[in-house]
């Protein structure tokens, strides 16, 4: 358009301006799409701008020469001589404008492609991070098992001689418990109700192991049972409570667990007795609590979701679980 107006401004008839404009612009468009395609398939990392300059110059020279060639072909009558002279004289201007236009297109396409590449990289990085997160979570969960597992098997081995019915019962409990821990997909949050079921299985097994030394109470409110939690989040906390409760005192031990909803938070409170004289330096450094802290951090990017306190020979752990996006099933 601009091209046509300019040509007319110099006093040439409408016919010349239109044809010249169409030819030049068609050639420019062809050059532009060519350059965009070239850049899509080959974009050097080093000396990117030299490469662009080179491409732009080549293409603008080609556009100017080709347009001159076509114009020469079309305006072959003697009456057109004057206009062809004008075309020749304006070679530099035409070249300059073509160069600018082609350069602009090249730069825009480079920006576009780099941005696209960047996005791909980001996506890849996200995926990698997600994978390593999952691997870490898997490892954290694995570390919880061996001591518990072998001791339970030992208890079963003992029961087979003295109380086969109870032995079989314990095998079923252990299998159910192991199945729930293996089946749980990290991404798939579960209802608190389910989490408590597997926790109770675990506690039943521990009670068989430790006999009358261990007892537990569980309090729960209706609302909290329908709320969603990351699978196996309570397990390590209760394990920790049992470990410190049973290994820091020699008396009978009661572990209190209460679960309730408070606004949007799901609160879990676990209490176990401990001996302040010998236990204090070891609390909070337990593997169990750290793994829960780490998991909650990976999930919510918050470090304040696990609180611990001790008073009157009772150690209390409070876990706050924020609302999941898909709150209810």
């Amino acid at each position: 358009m601009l091209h046509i107006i300019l040509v007319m401004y110099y006093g040439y008839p409408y016919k010349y301006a239109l044809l010249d404009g169409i030819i030049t612009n068609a050639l420019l468009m062809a050059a532009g799409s060519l350059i965009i395609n070239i850049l899509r398939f080959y974009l050097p990392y080093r000396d990117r701008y030299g490469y662009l300059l080179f491409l732009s110059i080549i293409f603008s020279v080609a556009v100017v020469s080709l347009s001159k060639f076509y114009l020469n072909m079309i305006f072959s009558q003697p009456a057109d001589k004057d206009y062809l002279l004008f075309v020749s004289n304006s070679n530099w201007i035409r070249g300059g404008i073509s160069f600018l236009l082609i350069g602009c297109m090249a730069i825009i396409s480079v920006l576009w492609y780099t941005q696209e590449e960047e996005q791909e990289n980001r996506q890849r990085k996200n995926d990698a991070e997600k994978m390593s997160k999952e691997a870490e979570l898997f490892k954290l969960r694995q570390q919880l098992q061996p001591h518990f597992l072998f001791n339970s098997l030992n208890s079963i081995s003992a029961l087979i001689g003295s109380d086969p019915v109870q032995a079989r019962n314990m095998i079923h409990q252990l299998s159910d418990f192991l199945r729930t821990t293996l089946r749980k997909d990290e991404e798939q949050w579960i209802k608190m109700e389910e989490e408590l079921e597997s926790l109770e299985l675990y506690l039943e097994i521990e009670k068989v192991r430790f006999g009358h030394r261990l007892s537990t109470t569980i309090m729960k409110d209706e609302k909290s049972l329908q709320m969603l939690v990351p699978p196996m989040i309570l397990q390590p906390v209760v394990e920790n409570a049992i470990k410190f409760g049973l290994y820091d005192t020699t008396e009978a031990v009661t572990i209190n667990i209460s679960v309730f909803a408070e606004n949007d938070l799901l609160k879990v409170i676990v209490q176990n007795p401990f001996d302040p004289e010998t236990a204090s330096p070891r609390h909070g450094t337990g593997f169990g609590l750290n793994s829960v802290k780490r998991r909650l951090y990976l999930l919510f990017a918050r470090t304040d979701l696990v609180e611990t306190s001790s008073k009157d020979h009772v150690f209390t752990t409070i876990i706050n679980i924020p609302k999941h996006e898909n709150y209810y099933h």
Partner: protein
Amino acid sequence: MKIIIIDDEPLARSIIREYLQFHPELNLIAECNDGFEGVKAIQQQQPDLIFLDIQMPKINGFEMLELIEEPPAVIFTTAFDEYAMKAFESHAVDYLLKPFSRDRFDKAISKWKLTDRTIPVKEQLAPLLESVSNSPAEQNRVVIKLSGKIRIIPIEDIHYLEAADDYVKIHTKEGAFLKNKTMGHFEKVLNKNQFVRTHRSYMINISEITRIDPYEKENHLAILKSGARVPVSKSGYLNLKMVLGL
């Protein structure tokens, strides 16, 4: 032959009891729930062999053994304790991994019957106990026995250590306790940035030091928060300066 089982899980004890029935010559005289009961039973009843669990309330199996002057022969039992298992392997001690079969149990008994009784058990166990005293569980406390009672001292409660013949005197705010170990042992076990050997016979918890005064020739005296004055030798002074970053 007198046998004692020490394990905090009743079922773990019952399976050993069951397997022992097939060895009528072995007479089970006591079962203990934890290390405290263990120490008492061993001293009162002088068994020939004990089955000892590692993970138990308050003090673990190794700590219990350290408290006994002349320990009986030991067969360790454990479910899973990477640290202990490594130590067992490198010190050729017999141990049973739970759950164990009757065959494996019988083998351990036959092996025990064939062992050389001329070397005191204490000597046989020493390298094992030395290596496990570096375990994470034992690094932050010291277990001692005082007139029949067992005390667990958290490491941070120790003010300073003093050599006393074959013992080390552990000074805390509640007084001094004797432990039958050497200074060398504590030097190896305790955190080097926390406890400094300031003298051939002294090691100080540096967070207890209030000031260091010159004292005779090239020696110094460290004054602790408790008011105690602890000798610092010439080389000890250099050690101290290094750790304190002077």
